């Protein structure tokens, strides 16, 4: 009798807990607990894996260092032959004359302690210094780039407005993004993938653009294009511009960007505001370059190149270009969220439309119900009265899996539904093992009570052994799997644990209730 007392209580507790967790899914808002999470493959949405080009971030740092070095060498009046970025991540400085070399070394020691001397070589009286960054500094830059990229993307997605996005690091330089229920996937991809580096660069109006188009680009300048699409004729025009490489001002000084409508042409544009320092720089550039053309460049594309009419002091500017309202809205978002520290590439994309997700749920539920009914009927036919006990266990099993999914806030995916359906087939196994044992014991002439006891005690260990191995496979799967497959591992694990409980505790309680309390003399098996 002692063994009986804890079992019904635990059964009731488990049922109650499962019901509490499952109810909000069936009737939303019953109590504050959350619904069962549906995976992207069931509710529709987009799964992206981005790779941050962290090598580019290192290159950019080196390029910036080279520029700084050039400026400070000029300031210190050290005469150098050339400063170039070589082998992607190195700066080669060619210097002539002992006095210059000594000054250069002094400058390095005093102001550029972080730079590593990768090698020197002499050719005549010209000495070439190769400089680069120490390995741990390079690692740090890469790590920082990956982190900043994630933060920037999170900002952009938050401003775009997606319900419960999931954004996280995956390995060193990958970012996993899950956007459930998103409809305009193309727009989201553009928003996420855009580097959004805004630069203001002067046009090189003296340069020969037709020579540049043939490949003869003057040093210190670059060839960039402005693409215009005429919405009425569907034709695009590409205008080349020769601009100076050096960016006079970048988007780093922005405090705000918003969409406004031009009252004259009724076209949307993005107005941007600089912070104090940015405003000062902007006023200075515009003041010094009146009547010259200033190109507004975003990710190496020229948006416009207006002529500066007068010094602009207000600390604000506007970006035009024939935008649609959505384009302008998204551009404002990426400008507000800031530029990515390095370009990103989409290396994995999985998109599921909402109608497909709904179809999957419907099909999953239909096969679950049908498969379940078949198994339930089969058990009744094969084991009669005891089959009903197994069926009760089976139904409770599904309830526990659902409760577990809600309780642990795990995600239900399409393979996950398959996992539940599979569990329906496999869960009866534990009961089958027990029933077969009971039949064996009864054929040896034992009383029902003794046969049930023997059946359970003999079958329990077997059931445990058999299920632990399935659990091992499921846990490995959980560790390895991504998204949908992980969902399968979750439901399979929950199913195994639930079937252990229902077979060893629940169905035994029912048997004992009939045999001990109701003093039933024979069992239908």
């Amino acid at each position, binding site marked *: 009798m002692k063994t009986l007392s804890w079992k019904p209580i635990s059964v009731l507790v488990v049922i109650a807990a499962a019901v509490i967790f499952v109810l909000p899914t069936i009737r939303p808002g019953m109590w504050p607990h959350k619904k069962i999470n549906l995976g992207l493959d069931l509710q529709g949405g987009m799964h992206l*894996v981005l790779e941050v080009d962290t090598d580019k971030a290192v290159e950019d740092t080196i390029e910036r260092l080279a520029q700084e070095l050039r400026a400070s060498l000029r300031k210190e009046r050290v005469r150098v032959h050339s400063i170039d970025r070589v082998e992607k991540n190195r700066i080669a400085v060619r210097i002539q004359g002992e006095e210059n070399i000594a000054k250069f070394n002094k400058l390095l020691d005093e102001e550029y302690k972080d730079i590593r001397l990768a090698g020197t070589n002499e050719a005549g009286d010209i000495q070439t210094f190769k400089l680069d960054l120490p390995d741990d500094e390079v690692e740090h830059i890469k790590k920082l780039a990956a982190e900043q990229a994630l933060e920037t993307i999170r900002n952009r997605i938050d401003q775009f407005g997606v319900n419960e996005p999931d954004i996280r690091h995956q390995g060193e330089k990958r970012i996993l993004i899950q956007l459930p229920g998103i409809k305009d996937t*193309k*727009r989201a*991809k553009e928003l996420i*993938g855009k580097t959004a580096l805004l630069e203001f660069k002067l046009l090189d109006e003296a340069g020969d653009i037709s020579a540049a188009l043939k490949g003869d680009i003057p040093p210190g300048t670059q060839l960039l294009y402005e693409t215009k699409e005429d919405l009425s004729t569907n034709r695009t025009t590409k205008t080349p511009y020769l601009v100076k490489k050096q960016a006079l001002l970048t988007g780093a000084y922005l405090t705000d960007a918003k969409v406004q409508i031009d009252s004259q042409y009724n076209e949307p544009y993005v107005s941007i505001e600089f912070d104090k320092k940015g405003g000062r720089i902007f006023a200075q550039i515009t003041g010094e370059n009146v009547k010259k053309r200033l190109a507004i460049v975003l990710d190496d594309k020229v948006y416009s190149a207006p002529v500066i009419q007068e010094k602009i002091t207000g600390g604000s500017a506007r970006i035009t270009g024939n935008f649609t309202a959505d384009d302008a809205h998204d551009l404002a978002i990426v400008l507000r969220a800031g530029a990515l520290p390095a370009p990103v*590439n*989409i*290396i*994995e*994309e*999985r998109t*599921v*439309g909402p*109608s*497909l997700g709904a179809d*999957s749920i419907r*099909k*999953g539920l239909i*096969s679950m119900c*049908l*498969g379940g009914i078949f*198994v339930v009927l*089969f058990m009744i*036919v*094969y*084991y*009669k009265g005891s089959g009903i006990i197994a069926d009760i266990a089976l139904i409770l099993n599904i309830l526990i899996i659902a409760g577990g999914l809600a309780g642990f806030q795990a995600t239900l995916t*399409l*393979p996950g539904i*398959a996992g539940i*359906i*599979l569990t*329906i*087939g*496999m869960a*009866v*196994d534990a009961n*089958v*093992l027990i029933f*077969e044992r009971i039949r*064996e014991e009864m054929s040896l002439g034992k009383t029902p009570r003794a046969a049930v006891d023997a059946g359970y005690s*003999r079958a329990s260990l*077997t059931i445990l*052994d*058999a299920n*632990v*191995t*399935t659990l*091992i*496979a499921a846990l*490995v*799967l959980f*560790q*390895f*799997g*991504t998204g*949908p*497959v992980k969902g*399968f591992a979750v439901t*399979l694990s929950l199913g195994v644990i639930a079937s252990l409980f229902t077979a060893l505790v629940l169905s035994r309680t029912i048997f004992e209730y009939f045999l001990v309390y109701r003093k039933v003399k024979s069992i239908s098996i």
Partner: protein
Amino acid sequence: MQFIKPGININFIGRRKIAFIVSLAMILITIASLIFHGGPRLGVDFAGGTVIQVKFDSPVAIADVKPALKSIEIGTSSVQEFGAAKENEYLIRADSSTALTEDMQQNIEQALQKATGQKAQIRRVDMVGPQVGQDLREKALLAMFFALLFITIYISGRFELKWMLSGVMAGALMLAVYVLTIFEVSIPYLMIAAVFVTLILFWFLELKYAMGAIVALIHDVTITVGIFSIFDKEFTLPIIAALLTIIGYSLNDTIIVFDRIRENLRKHHKQPLDVILNTSINETLGRTILTSLTTLIVLITLFVLGGGIIHDFAFAMIIGVLVGTYSSIFVASPILLAWQNRGK
């Protein structure tokens, strides 16, 4: 109702030579099919590339779809029907693995609409870059290997109380695999080598039950892979999930027979091993068939009604359950006899 009458005694062990030939033949066919097809047919998850699932209002001819996509540079390699016929869904497989840009997606929809005269709706896009594909491939193989390894530790521990021995062995194997992956040894060969080393170790350390179980598992997975290859079906992530579940399921069956063997060895220790094996298989036969049957019932409903994505998964599981049931009777137990013959 009872399928298997108590006291039944089919001589399974006596027919182990026939079973051995059957198994060997199936494994050879698997290898032949894999060689013929140039290895398993990998889906985009593992090979990289793009899959686009399109739905039309009424059936269209695949012959119309393919040329329509020629003009769009996505490198279309195949177009096939997907799911039930009445759904009018098609899978377009492309080798290109660059994210579909706005224009691309629109172009595809327009090109399809023009070629078939029907509205085409893109329902699903899966794009996997080559690097991600390779990562997933390696992860999948490692997962299968580790699942096997952990399971054998458990079996050796539970059935022969050799926790330490099997634990140390598994630890050494894991370390070796880990070290070799650092040296970038090609993962598939590494796994095959590791499995062979494991089998040889089991043999000499006389981890009988673990050996029986793992041989049965490798047998099941190999044959399932072989049948997949014969039907020229694709290996995707859900299929790996199915293979791991087959490992779990087949082992479930095997352990239940082993458990009975262990019990009978204690009860009738005077009887020869082959008789005990046979009795144990017969005693558990009812359960083996019944559980396989209920599992097959639900798998068949999934296969028929579950929709395109689940279809192949259910197919793999159905094969796995059938082969797994066969192997727990005809493969796992006879292996226990191997050491008996060696002693003589």
